[in-house]
Structure formats: structure tokens, C-alpha cells
């Protein structure tokens, strides 16, 4: 199969775009984190994120967050078209700062949980989830 100059350029452009898009998505996730924490430093311990290593169906990926003593936990999917997933705000009657839900993932990516602890500090945890079939329509 012969490529004309025009086809080669188009292919190269498409390849460059696929490299640029994930980078833009993670930049959006960083922005969301900065907005949530207000630029404060983030510790590594203090929040636990439970997610499957391999999710066959990206439409319903079960996740659970647990952050003892947290007032709020934000969950982000860095590779989704919009990174936000959910923010859990725990009230005074929450017996434990634990919650689980099901989320959509567009493809294999890192899922990030950021917890705001009672003393105002922040904790972060992330997990890579491999997705067999993406969950964003298409």
C-alpha cells in the first residue's frame, strides 16, 4: 500500500493528537485537585481507595473510599473527558467516613481520591484501573 504525502501527514497528525489528548485530560484533573485543596500540600497516607485492577465494563466500575476522620473525599478519573466523579461530604452522623458507588471510566487510567481531613490537611491515593470496554458511549 502506497502512501501519498498528504495521507502520511494526516496519519502523523492523528498520531500526535492521540499523544496530546491524554495530557490535556490529566491537566484538567490537576486543576480540579488544585481547586479542591486550594494548592495545599497533599500527604500520601490517610485515604484508602478500593477499585478493581481490571474492569471488564467501563460503564459500571465499583469503587469504595475510606478516609477515617475526613470531612470530604473527592474522586477523580484522570483519563475521562471530564475528570470529576463525585465528592462525598460526611456529616456529623456518618458512622465511618466510608462510601462506595459505581462509576464510568472511558479507558485504562488512574483513579484518584483526595481526602480533606478534619485538621484541614489533605491526603491522596490513586489506583490504576485497566478497562476492557470503555464507558463513554462513542
Amino acid at each position: 500500500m502506497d502512501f501519498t504525502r498528504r495521507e502520511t501527514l494526516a496519519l502523523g497528525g492523528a498520531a500526535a493528537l492521540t499523544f496530546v489528548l491524554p495530557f490535556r485530560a490529566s491537566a484538567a484533573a490537576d486543576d480540579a485537585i488544585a481547586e479542591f485543596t486550594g494548592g495545599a500540600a497533599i500527604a500520601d497516607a490517610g485515604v484508602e481507595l478500593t477499585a478493581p485492577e481490571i474492569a471488564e465494563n467501563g460503564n459500571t466500575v465499583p469503587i469504595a473510599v475510606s478516609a477515617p476522620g475526613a470531612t470530604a473525599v473527592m474522586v477523580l478519573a484522570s483519563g475521562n473527558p471530564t475528570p470529576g466523579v463525585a465528592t462525598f461530604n460526611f456529616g456529623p452522623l456518618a458512622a465511618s467516613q466510608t462510601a462506595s458507588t459505581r462509576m464510568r471510566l472511558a479507558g485504562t487510567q488512574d483513579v484518584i481520591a483526595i481526602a480533606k481531613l478534619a485538621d484541614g490537611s489533605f491526603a491522596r491515593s490513586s489506583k490504576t484501573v485497566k478497562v476492557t470496554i470503555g464507558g463513554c458511549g462513542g
Partner: protein
Amino acid sequence: MASGVKPRVKVPKSASAGDAITIKTLISHPMESGQRKDGDGNPIPRSIINRFTCEFNGQSVIDITLEPAISTNPYFEFEATVPEAGEFAFTWYDDDGSVYNDNKAITV
């Protein structure tokens, strides 16, 4: 207005005072993300539940902000403390302004 929206909540009927109980909630809702396109290539407008709250006798248990990345039929499981007999109030807020409620009483 999303059709066929039906909240379902599972709460134990009784508990001891101060006990932690597990609550499971599910609401049937399409959670249209705004990313999908219909047969003609036009984007389908976003229509999701954007907030869910659970209160016990007026005190907050949990308040969740939902984004389009939450799956169809949003499901939540969490734990609550029961200091006295009373009623749990669950509220879901739809993008289109609709509010769905469910209440569950619990005895101590």
C-alpha cells in the same frame, strides 16, 4: 424530565442507640453524561442527578456531589450512626430541577 425514576433505599428496621448501620441506596436514572451522540451525530444533552443527601432527624449524614462519571442508576452505600429513633430523609436533585425523596423510619 427523566422518566421512570424510582428511588430505592435499604435501611434496617431497628437498631440499638449509637449503633452504626449500613445504608444502601439506588435510584433508577439514565444519567445521560452529555458525551454520547444520537443516530444523527447530535450530542445528547446532559441529564444527571447532580446531588444526593441523606439526613437523620435534620442532621446531615452524607452529602454527595455527582458528576457525569457516575454510572446509570446511581448506587451508594455508606454507614450512619443512629442516636435515637427517627427518620432518615433521602433526597436526590436532578439536573432538570426535579427533586426525588424517600423516607425511612427506624426504631431504637
